């Protein structure tokens, strides 16, 4: 039996509460709002799931996203074409991901400190490039792309869905998925089986960097500008979504579907608190509380579920 993660109940409870108390929460428009608001977070949370399953962590994603956004906006402002600027932004992400991978896998530096260091570097670079100012005047191409509605859906939702499908397919139907779980759970067996575990391990971090670059496209499109601290701390939301979605830091356990539920829960929570006019600063705090609640539920449910399973 595949159990519903504890957070599934929490998501349902949140939706019910906000529907009851917040007028204008349960509407189609607002549903799309939640989807759009959650899409950037999903782009970060998907690779973060893989990073955490490999017993790693990437604290630099928010800062790298900000830096990629600043690079993108600066290039666009200087009249470069959208494809060229996008490639550059994603390359910046990939470069930082590669650096993280080298530090963690090659040098054996604990991931949370290695990525804390690159967080500082990315944030510093973004500040140095912009002098701490917003980059405006990014032209029309990117905002127009962001406003477009392929398949009748908002652009960012389409990108987020596509990313989920690609991740899920790769995870389920290629050896990559099994390798990711094994890197966290049983690296030795992977190496003995002749798999170049180190390459895949670095690859996970590169993927995280690339997705931060892609997320920069959406975020910059939404804001029509680049800002050096635009996404600072967003990696925390992503980590929270992954943990809330039931992925564990031990033994390569986790699922991408759980992460989607985690992202949606955070999206619903933020949106619902907005509807209830709770200040945005407290919404940040509420995500921390949500994560703790989810973990407590999980720790209460899990032994109970196991006991049921055994007695059955």
């Amino acid at each position, binding site marked *: 039996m595949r159990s519903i993660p504890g957070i599934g109940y929490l998501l349902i409870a949140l939706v019910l509460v906000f529907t009851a108390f917040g007028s204008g929460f349960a509407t189609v428009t607002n549903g799309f709002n939640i989807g759009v608001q959650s899409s950037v977070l999903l782009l970060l949370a998907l690779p973060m799931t893989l990073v955490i399953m490999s017993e790693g*962590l990437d*604290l630099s994603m928010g800062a790298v996203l900000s830096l990629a956004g600043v690079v993108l906006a600066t290039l666009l402002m200087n009249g470069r074409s959208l494809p060229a600027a996008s490639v550059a932004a994603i390359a910046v992400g990939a470069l930082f991901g590669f650096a993280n991978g080298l*530090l963690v896998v090659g*040098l*054996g*530096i*604990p991931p*949370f*400190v*290695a990525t*804390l*260091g*690159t*967080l*500082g*570097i990315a*944030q*510093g*670079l973004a*500040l*140095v490039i912009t*002098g*701490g100012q917003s980059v405006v005047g990014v032209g029309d191409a990117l905002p127009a792309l962001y406003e477009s509605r392929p398949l009748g859906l908002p652009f960012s939702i389409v990108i987020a869905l596509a990313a989920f499908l690609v991740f899920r397919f790769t995870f389920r139907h290629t050896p990559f998925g099994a390798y990711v779980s094994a890197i966290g759970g049983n690296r030795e067996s992977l190496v003995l089986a002749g798999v170049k575990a180190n390459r895949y391990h670095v690859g996970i971090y590169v993927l995280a960097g690339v997705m931060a670059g892609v997320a920069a496209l959406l975020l910059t499109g939404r804001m029509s500008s680049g800002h050096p601290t635009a996404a600072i*701390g967003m990696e*925390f939301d992503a*980590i*929270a979504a992954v*943990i809330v979605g039931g992925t564990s*830091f031990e033994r390569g356990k986790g699922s991408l579907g759980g992460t989607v539920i985690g992202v949606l829960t955070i999206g619903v929570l933020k949106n619902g608190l907005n509807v209830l006019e709770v*200040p945005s*600063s*407290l*919404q*940040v*705090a*509420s*995500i*921390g*509380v949500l*994560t*703790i609640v989810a*973990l*407590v539920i999980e*720790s209460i449910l899990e032994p109970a579920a196991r006991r049921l399973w055994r007695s059955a």
Partner: protein
Amino acid sequence: MKRLVFRLAAIATIGAALSVTTESFLTLTNLLNVLRQASLTFLIASGLTFTVLTAGLDLSVGANVGLSACLAGTVMQSTGSVALGAATGLVFGAGIGILNGLMVTLLRLPPFIATYGMLWTLNGVTYWFMGGDTIHGFPAGFRALGSGYWLGVPVPIYLMAALLFAGVVFTRYTTHGHEVFAIGANREAARLSGVPIRARLNLVYVLSGAMAGLAAIVYLARLNSAEADIGEPLTLPAIAAVLIGGTSLFGGVGSLLGTLIGALTLTLVVNGMNLLAIDASWQPLVTGVIVILAVWIDVMTRRRAEATI
């Protein structure tokens, strides 16, 4: 011992380079200023050192300083009582430490995740509490704690010396102190030897929180104002100070004296950048690079030690 000499030599080298390249480095005012800055970093980093010694980490120290300073400042202004304000800062700082400890010991969260979550939660609460306001203007007697002099030496330096002394006594001559090292070196062995793991882990996180609370009060006195964002730039330098000081992220190895040397080294670098008129936006970048270098050395030292065993 050899590593200590190596670290002191690094400080001497940076100092010598700055004396040659700038005119204002080798003045009494600037050197005392460096020491004062270093003592503030040391206050935060000292509590953090204990958590790292247990193979843990407290990423929430900077945010803790921010919230504790804002609360202490508000209480101080609304009641007019310095003692009450200072007590508020200390109690809240330690209280946040208790929450961190409980997340690590009861919920069994990895410390870096628990305290990272705490960082953003505290940031949110602080911004909400301050609502964009700045509090400033505290009694002169209180401000002396951060910016005053006694016998020609800045007051925070005495605080640093007192804490260093207390910390060294704690780590070297008390059972609790030894147990902190034991947990970091080999948790299972410590447990089997009867060390109360949970109680000691709670203790180090409370210490870290309380030190952040104390640092908040000194910062408040130094800045003579409090805003929601004052804690944000403090976390990375504190971690860098601990790591430069040779305390191993893997636990069980390190010292408060090392952390002091780490705080001095980092402050010298930042002070040097200021004197050389290098834009302040370079500071997070440089600190980031230093953190990575320090951990890399830590990892290599550990590998070499393992190879010789």
